[in-house]
């Protein structure tokens, strides 16, 4: 992953953050190393222990009025202390501008100072949105991601097993392709992973025997979506007599992707098997479970009750001499 320079932040989100650069461009080369945002109130007041200098520093109205009431000497030493700690950048909110002395010290330490017209909380929120997305853990996997009835199914399995063909079949039945072949997975929250395709590939896919096709052009806008939460992994493999496949569905297999555990379903492929319908069933079954209905568990409970009742009835009949 390429580093996030201050310049990249400025270029990518100038309008979103509504920022303008107040001092020289020498600070644009600095690298932002983490997703956190910090308001350095205590650091300005002189308490430098545990100062989180690697974070993006945001100054609000309070901090600015504190700086403005200082004498020149005090201001210079405070600025020196702040910028001397190798902070990546400062953004001042509400369109405020710190004094020229402050900016000069910033220049001396090659640190960029921006002014944003947003309020402090709005600025912090938007900064977090951008920084969190940039620093979110991500991997790329080989597979196909399809939205089936709103459930994100990630198909995995060897090259040539038929993942793309299944996706095509699902698209034909009204489901939506997210990406084929190269899936970029990002962890957006502690228990949430989202998959997208690559910009270059878009919604193109390769179908053996035909070549490259464009699903968006062929099936229209309804056939695609740009990103989708991944909820179930469907692993495809050739049918093997040695392998035991799940017969009841009482035990759920899980796979961990970027620290997030999602159910994994192993589907054996054999001629004449309709994986499309099975896929729809997987999606619907997952939804049932989300809504608190576990068919396998319910059925097994029912069976157990019946066996219990039968045993009682038999006991009664045996002991009944009427």
């Amino acid at each position, binding site marked *: *992953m390429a580093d996030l320079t201050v310049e990249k932040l400025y270029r990518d989100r100038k309008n979103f953050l509504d920022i303008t650069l107040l001092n020289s461009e020498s600070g644009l080369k600095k690298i932002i190393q983490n997703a956190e945002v910090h308001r350095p109130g205590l650091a300005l007041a002189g308490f430098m222990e545990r100062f989180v200098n690697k974070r993006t520093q945001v100054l609000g109205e309070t901090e600015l009025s504190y700086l403005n009431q200082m004498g020149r000497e005090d201001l210079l030493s405070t600025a020196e202390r702040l910028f001397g700690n190798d902070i990546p950048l400062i953004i001042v909110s509400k369109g405020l501008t710190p004094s020229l002395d402050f900016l000069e010290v910033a220049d001396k330490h090659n640190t960029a100072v921006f002014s944003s017209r947003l309020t402090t909380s709005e600025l912090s929120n938007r900064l977090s949105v951008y920084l969190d997305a940039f620093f979110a853990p991500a991997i*790329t996997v*080989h597979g196909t991601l399809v939205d089936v009835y709103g459930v994100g199914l990630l198909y995995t399995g*060897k*090259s*040539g097993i038929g993942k793309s063909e299944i996706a095509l079949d699902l698209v034909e039945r009204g489901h939506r392709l997210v990406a*084929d*072949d*190269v899936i970029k997975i990002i962890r957006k929250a502690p228990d949430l992973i989202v998959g997208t395709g*690559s910009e*270059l*590939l878009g919604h*193109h*896919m*390769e179908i053996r025997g035909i070549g*490259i096709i464009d699903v968006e052009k062929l099936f229209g806008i309804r056939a695609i979506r740009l990103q989708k939460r991944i909820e179930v992994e469907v692993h495809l493999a050739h049918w093997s007599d040695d392998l035991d496949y799940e017969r009841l569905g009482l035990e759920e297999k899980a796979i961990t992707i970027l620290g997030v555990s999602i159910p994994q379903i192993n589907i054996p492929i054999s001629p004449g098997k309709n994986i499309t319908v099975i896929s729809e069933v997987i999606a619907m079954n997952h939804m049932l479970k989300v809504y608190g209905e576990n068919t396998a568990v319910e059925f097994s409970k029912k069976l157990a009750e019946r066996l219990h009742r039968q045993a009682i009835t038999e006991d009664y009949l045996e002991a009944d001499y009427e």
Partner: protein
Amino acid sequence: MVQKTVKIANRLGMHARPSAMFVSHASKFQSEISVEKAGLRVNGKSIMGVMMLAAEMGSELIIFAEGEDEEQTVEALANLVSTGFGDLKDL
């Protein structure tokens, strides 16, 4: 697991035809194959993945193989890339 780093030798880089050639060669081997460029790793038997790398001339590819024929696999594929895809040299 065997791996080898190679430089793209043909002038136009891994465009569609060299990519197709690469994956059809790769598919003849039993090993699991992956190819990496600049930290991005894709399946070496999938044409979309290989094309997505957009590997230009002079860029470095790392070819990984795992399986019974991993040695031959990496050797053959590395050779294909570093010789500029044989007949496709001028493309």
